[in-house]
């Protein structure tokens, strides 16, 4: 394997941050060992590899850990660049790279906390409605960003899946569960039609197969497990 060493990914199957890394590994056709972590009882390998944040994903390459999902994605893009038919995740033009990084940061700054609010942190209906409103507002901004970035092509990255696509796409697993929980689509075709069409295309993409959860009941069941883990930690 190029760059020397086996790939191992420590993750949790619903994590938006893990899913985006798996999509990129699939895009690059890179084989890897996937290890599902138990967040209620984190492995010694996880704690040793990411002592600062103790979180997933962790990518181990020849045993060396790379942490923080957007950093991991860029690492993969640099070690296995887009040559000889292999796709690139970030574009090659410096300005376009800056635009992609800007929107990726926006997604994690705005969609991330809203998702956490809806799924874990809201204690009342009002709080959850507020978090949903925040998510929808961010998605409406991303609708405009999509039109600008895609320029009529299927993805933020253009013809193929790119950086912003995988960063936002990572949340789609949870969105499946949230849509059922709140009784409406977060990416609403009536409000954000371009993103709704993008969502369908992303889920159907080869690289997303098997890594973007689409079973709402399973996701919501897992949510209960996660809530129980954090409740027991709080004691």
């Amino acid at each position, binding site marked *: 394997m*190029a*760059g*020397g*060493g086996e790939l191992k990914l420590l993750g949790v199957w619903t994590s938006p941050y893990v899913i985006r890394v798996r999509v990129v590994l699939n895009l690059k056709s890179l084989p890897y060992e996937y290890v599902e972590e138990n967040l209620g009882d984190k492995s010694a390998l996880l704690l040793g590899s990411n002592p*600062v944040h103790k979180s997933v994903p962790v990518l181990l*390459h*020849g045993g*060396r850990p*790379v*942490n*923080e999902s*957007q*950093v*991991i994605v*860029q*690492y993969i893009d*640099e*070690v296995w660049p887009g040559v000889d038919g292999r796709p690139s995740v970030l574009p090659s033009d*410096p*300005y376009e*790279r*800056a635009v992609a*990084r*800007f929107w990726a*940061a*926006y997604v994690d700054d705005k969609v991330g906390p809203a998702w956490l609010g809806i799924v874990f942190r809201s204690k009342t209906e009002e709080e959850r409605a507020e978090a949903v409103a925040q998510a929808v507002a961010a998605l409406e*901004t991303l609708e405009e960003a999509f039109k600008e970035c895609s320029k009529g092509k299927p993805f933020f990255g253009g013809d193929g899946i790119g950086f912003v696509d995988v960063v936002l796409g990572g949340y789609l697993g949870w969105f499946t569960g949230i849509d059922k929980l709140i009784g409406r689509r977060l990416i609403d075709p009536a409000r954000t039609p371009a993103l709704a069409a993008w969502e369908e295309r992303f889920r159907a993409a080869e690289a997303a197969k098997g890594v973007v959860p689409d079973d709402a009941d399973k996701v919501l069941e897992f949510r209960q497990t996660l809530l129980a883990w954090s409740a027991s930690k709080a004691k």
Partner: protein
Amino acid sequence: MAAEKKADLVLLDFWVSPFGQRCRIAMAEKGLDFEYREEDLANKSDLLLRSNPVHKKIPVLLHAGRPVCESLVILSYLDEAFPDTPQLLPPLSAAGAGAADAAYARARARFWADYIDKKLYDCGSRLWKLKGEPQAQARAEMVEILRTLEAELGDRDFFGGGGGRLGFVDVALVPFTSWFYSYERYGGFSVEEACPKLAAWARRCGEIDSVAKHLHSPEKVYDFIGVLKKKYGIE
């Protein structure tokens, strides 16, 4: 070289912003001339609002009129758009086994810059905004953050990076050294005592021209915080 020095660069900024200072120092390290424009944050210019409609925040770098937003995105952009200037991130070598090592060093730098962004400014704000137990908690967190950064520095003179002395992490962190005095005053601790190696690093950076030119005195920052507190009615 001459063409690069005359590159059309405008920085929309606010004098005390550590995020803006990152950009100023980076351009100074690279020998890039730029036009500095001070924004009145109570009365933002049309140019700022047009250039960063999403966040309406400084810093914004305009290169030939095109805006780049988010300070770490700006740092990466400066490396990539001006490849013949001293690089902040270790450059990728040609191919093969060396590629993974360079990519790993870059990933490590990005990880620590992200850590600084996630932790430092917010914790510092809590130090001067809060009192009693919450303030004590913020102090404990601040000492932890600084010690964690000191551990990453190790016995090196700088966090390091590309061709020059100051690398990505040095530039990301150094503006906050002007805030150490304020953290100490409000938090009731000493950076020198808590993390002497980091304190030595701060002094070492202060002797570098690009840093000395663009940082404000700790006393000026402390006075600024005093003005902010009055403005927000915080005692």
